[in-house]
């Protein structure tokens, strides 16, 4: 609206995902940066050597925010977030695009995790596992979850709003219960310890040594890498593939049909959109994304009990859509990173503050006020992990932050982070006439 009009010479050019040169450059830059992330980039990852920066109190010691490069804990958080992007893109198809609010997303992640474990995991006396290679268990996890999605959809497509939310909520409890039965334990393992999940290694079939090993450290193209770094790269590639799927679904026939049903269901039918069929498609597709993400997540975490696929996880996905901006792919991606990384940021930040509480100067005084350390003072945030109701520990603080953020976004920015981004973009497009 506020720039020189771009001249499109064909529909082909116009329907591109990244129609402008600038957008292409930004996308390429982002992808390159993403794949560089697991490697140590000295300027950013540690305490800076530049004297000018060293003199600035916060930056000199290396900000917590920049520590994620290299093989650090942050690399794992980033991998978590990228797996969550895949799952959230699935929920975005069902809830964002088709308008069907589901609280059962965690259930479908669980179905994916245990389908993957059934196909690719190793059998023991107590659990099933067929030791199949990843090219079978990873898509298989998606297909398994999609099939379960199709099984429940005859009920689900006839419900909407609160009723659908409650029925899908039931799925989560049903899932956890099933994982606890004798039968379920053959899939899910011990209820408190869980079972081991297949590793992300490329094999042709069941041979001992993988073609390409991802879950073991080793060298790729002459670079020594840890399993964290390798898994990061693999997960990043999977995420990009699913972003590609999600963008394409949104801009083609199915995506339009889903949005039509969301906005005006009767008009959509009168236009020839088969409502039940497309709601089923939305359910199955969303479950497919969740299934793949669930299997990947389980493999990434290594060992987890079935009770992890619980209501809180489902709500986290709803929070991602609300905070990111439901219905948009870009918003879903932003929301996923935000919701997954925020707790780690908060934790890092309070650690960082508490390290400095003993010292002198402004940072120390600030942390005196905010933190309540072992000295028993009255700061609102505790550095201990287990505290009574007050002061809040960092986990409580994160829950409170989610709640507040959801309310803030619902009231002030229904389009979420995506909406904020659009506003910022338009601001700069009009700059310096930004009024």
């Amino acid at each position, binding site marked *: 609206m506020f720039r020189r009009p771009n001249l499109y010479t064909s*529909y*082909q050019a116009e*329907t591109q995902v990244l129609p402008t040169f600038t957008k292409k450059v930004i996308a390429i830059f982002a992808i390159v940066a993403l794949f560089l992330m697991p490697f140590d980039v000295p300027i950013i990852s540690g305490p800076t050597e530049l004297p000018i920066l060293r003199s600035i109190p916060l930056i000199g010691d290396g900000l917590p925010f920049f520590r994620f490069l290299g093989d650090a804990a942050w690399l794992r958080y980033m991998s978590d977030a990228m797996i969550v992007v895949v799952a959230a893109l699935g929920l975005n198809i069902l809830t964002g695009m088709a308008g069907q609010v589901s609280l059962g997303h965690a259930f479908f992640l669980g179905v994916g995790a245990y389908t993957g474990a059934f196909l690719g995991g190793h059998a023991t006396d107590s659990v099933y596992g067929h030791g199949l290679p990843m090219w079978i268990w990873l898509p298989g996890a998606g297909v398994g979850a999609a099939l379960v999605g199709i099984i429940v959809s005859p009920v689900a497509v006839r419900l909407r709003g609160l009723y659908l939310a409650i029925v899908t909520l039931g799925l989560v409890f049903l899932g956890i219960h099933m994982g606890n039965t004798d039968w379920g334990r053959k899939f899910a393992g011990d209820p408190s310890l869980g079972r081991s999940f297949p590793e992300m290694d490329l094999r042709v079939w069941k041979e001992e040594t993988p073609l390409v090993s991802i879950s073991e450290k080793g060298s790729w193209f002459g670079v020594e890498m840890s399993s964290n770094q390798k898994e990061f790269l693999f997960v990043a590639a999977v995420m990009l593939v699913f972003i*590609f*799927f*999600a963008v*394409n*679904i949104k*801009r*083609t*026939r*199915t*995506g*339009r*049909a889903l*949005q*039509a049903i969301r*906005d*005006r269901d*009767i*008009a*959509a*039918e*009168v*236009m*020839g*959109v*088969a*409502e039940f069929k497309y709601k089923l*498609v939305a359910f199955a*597709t969303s479950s497919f994304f969740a299934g793949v993400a669930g299997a990947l997540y389980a493999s990434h975490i290594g060992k987890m009990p079935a009770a992890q696929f619980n209501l809180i996880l489902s709500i986290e996905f709803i929070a991602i859509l609300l905070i990111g901006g439901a*219905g948009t792919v870009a918003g879903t991606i932003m929301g996923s990173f935000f919701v997954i990384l925020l707790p780690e940021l908060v934790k890092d930040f309070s650690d960082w503050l508490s390290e400095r509480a003993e010292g002198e100067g402004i940072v120390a005084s600030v942390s005196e006020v905010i933190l309540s350390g072992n000295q028993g003072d009255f700061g609102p945030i505790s550095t201990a992990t287990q505290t009574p109701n007050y002061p809040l520990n960092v986990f409580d603080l994160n829950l409170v932050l989610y709640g507040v953020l959801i309310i803030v976004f619902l009231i002030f920015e229904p389009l979420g982070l995506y909406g904020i981004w659009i506003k910022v973009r338009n601001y700069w497009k009009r700059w310096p006439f930004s009024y």
Partner: protein
Amino acid sequence: MSTLLEVENITLRFGGVTAINDVSFSVEDHELFAIIGPNGAGKTSIFNTISQVYRPQEGDIRFEGSSIMGTRPDHVAEMGIARTFQNIELFPQMTVIDNLLTGRHIRMKGSVFSGALWWGKAKREEMENRRKVEDIIDFLEIEQWRKYPVALLPYGIQKRVELGRALAMDPKILLLDEPVAGMNLEETEDMARFILDIKRELDIAMVMVEHDMGLVMDIADRVMVLDFGQRIALGTPDEVQKNPDVIAAYLGSEFA
């Protein structure tokens, strides 16, 4: 001329209210058939029974000779019956182009798989249909609005986009529910021109519900008058205008 749509003795009741009472009419190929009548006469209900959103308790509706009773609305659309709505029912968050492309839904085949992969055929289908949509956009002179979400457009333009979405379905018959309601004179004239162009150039039969008597008398081939769910007259505009029952219903019986 052959008969395209036949509505035979349909009766539609909502609890105690009889919205349509034993109404029959038929629409020929190429015809512009108008339905008029006071508010609450049952005009919109007739459209809803034709698109099978409502199921009449009695009577039969045939399209191209075969009954469509009990058919799902999306199948009715596929057969070639398209419509617009009295209160605009566009998809508000989608752009004009996407709204019209949704009209192309029934003429496309792409599945969620081919769409997700954006492979050759799916991509080609999107492009081809995009071209058809652009033709309609040219035809309705809404080029400048193509990329706006429809919720942001002025009312008159939204009405036009809705007509475009129905046209995008490649229908054999178009049902227009009050296409010029709430429009100013200029917008009304534009819309009348488009309706006549559709009739002449695209050769699509139309059923039009309208309150604007001037418009109906000017452009309709035949007119049916409804009152309290009943048909009180059917004929050419001239015949209907002279009908004493119609004059009574519209102006009160003392003028009859």
